[in-house]
């Protein structure tokens, strides 16, 4: 891993020096043993570049900041989660005009450079499925009332800081649903109804689009296991409609297409 880090750092430095990219977006050591995003414009800035299991912030989220885009063509140190987000953003035509270069590590720790969605998809296919980052809770074993109690307990802590939204590359709406007040469809205050409606709405808006990077769960200051909700819907959608977000650039948004033979068992 140390070797891979060195190679990565050298390559990033070369890319900056040669002007191939104007900016390297990566991770650096932060405080209290955490990492934080790095926006390196000079090679000296890359001294602190790291990539390890602490890198749960999804750097793809910075591609939606005009201030970052204005810095020029970026090279992005990309974990597989970041790459999945890029594929999904490309599938949604949300990367138009931007052609970042991605620095990733393959299974044997070699540094690979990726530019096109096809290269990214091939790289991801070679890496195989990512190991789950967060502990899971056995909700299947609970009855309905217990599940309701579980989630009410979790949402009770929600303070509506929107760290989940802010850290999600797929939440790129200029005006979020909750920021519309004609009508105020989702209540603003962090009471029980507001929190429930917010998390349901967000889960529905991410259904079929979430690549399960885990950034939302890592970002949540109160530790709500949002990954469980998004994972449940990602599994359901793959089972019922096929396809999974973050695997291909040719993915249709599952809720805007349909098949005449979609199968369910609850409509009488």
């Amino acid at each position: 891993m140390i070797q891979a880090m060195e190679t990565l750092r050298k390559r990033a430095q070369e890319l900056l020096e040669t002007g191939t990219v104007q900016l390297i977006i990566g991770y650096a050591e932060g405080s209290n043993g955490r990492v934080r995003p790095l926006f390196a414009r000079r090679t000296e800035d890359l001294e602190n570049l790291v990539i390890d299991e602490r890198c749960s912030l999804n750097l793809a989220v910075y591609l939606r900041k005009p201030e970052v885009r204005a810095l020029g063509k970026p090279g992005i140190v990309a974990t597989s989660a970041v790459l999945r987000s890029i594929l999904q953003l490309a599938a949604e035509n949300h990367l138009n005009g931007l052609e970042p270069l991605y620095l990733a590590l393959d299974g044997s720790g070699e540094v690979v450079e990726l530019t096109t969605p096809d290269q990214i998809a091939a790289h991801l296919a070679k890496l195989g499925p990512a190991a789950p980052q967060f502990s899971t809770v056995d909700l299947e074993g609970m009855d309905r009332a217990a599940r309701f109690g579980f989630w009410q307990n979790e949402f009770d802590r929600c303070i509506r800081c929107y760290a989940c939204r802010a850290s999600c590359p797929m939440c790129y709406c200029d005006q979020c649903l909750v920021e519309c007040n004609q009508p105020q469809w989702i209540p603003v205050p962090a009471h029980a109804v507001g929190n429930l409606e917010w998390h349901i709405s967000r889960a529905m808006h991410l259904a079929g689009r979430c690549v399960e990077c885990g950034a939302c769960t890592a970002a949540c200051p109160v530790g709500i296991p949002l990954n469980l909700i998004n994972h449940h819907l990602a599994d359901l959608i793959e089972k019922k409609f096929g396809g999974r977000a973050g695997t291909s650039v040719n993915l249709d948004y599952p809720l805007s297409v349909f098949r005449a033979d979609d199968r369910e068992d609850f409509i009488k």
Partner: protein
Amino acid sequence: MTETKLLRKESLGPLLQRLRQGGRRIVAPCQAGQTNTVWFREVDGDEQIDLERFTVASAKSVVFPIVEEILKFKTIGRQVTIQNGTPRVESTVVVGLRPCDARGLEVLDAVFLGEPQDLFFRKRREATTLITLSCSKADENCFCTSVGGGPGDTRGSDLLLTPVQDDRFLVEVLTPKGAQIVEVGAELFEAVEADATQVPNKERFLASVPVRFSLSDVEAKLPRLFDREEFWHEQSLACLGCSTCAFVCPACSCFDIQDEGALHGGRRLRCWDSCGQKLFTLHASGHNPRSIQSQRWRQRIMHKFSYLPDRSRITPDAAGRPGVFGCVGCGRCSRACPAGMNIIERLTAIAEAEL
């Protein structure tokens, strides 16, 4: 004149139990659910109070709730009845907050107890007693000493407990409210021996929190840094514009008013808000004077380190204190920020900026 006593650590539980029996609500840090985080929660006695780790958020929700109802209305025919809310105030003791938290409440005082006074805040504040815990440990995000505070600062507290030798707390009784607590505890508190050698030296037990930057330099330079767009741009590149820092901060007080209901009835609620959000300054016309994150980040810093101290010098707060800064150096914003924004670094850059 501050009275000093000693309290065995094992007597804290019984003290809280007595306070509970006397009708007081106890709020203390404890673990939240299955997460590895610590929160201020109302405790019934069965929960494990955690006095070791820092809480993720401040204790301000005790006096400034995250959602509170300030009025309700009912319409029958053409008749509208409005009922003004009053805070359902319970006598509350917050135990285990830190000196920075207590000072944070003083910052809220400067905002809510000026003219006009916020009735809801005042009633809750009057009904709340603070048993603060000095810090024997600090981490690299702490900077209370850089903003005029300290790990054993007594300002704003009613009782200050400092863990000293022999499994005891040194108890400083700072206010009449604090004295009342001691009265309830009665024999649980031990007198400090008249012999000076028995008095624990508080300083020995406090964490070392080095001063990180010059606050006066920060305040002096800020007005002249206002127009440096590039400077604020760089500082806020990582910022994702969520509300986490504002919500965990002991000194942030911005709020929104939301009306909910329909023609036949409804309620008006006050809830927390954050200047980091784009919507915060969006005008009905569509114009937004702080349309980019760097402007919002600048606002956060200027408000806390320039506007608030400026304004409070012109109009001292209810207690007559001038020059209140909107930051107590607790470091919660840095710890909770999903994008790893580090406020000490930002303030140091300001203090050391070349003009």
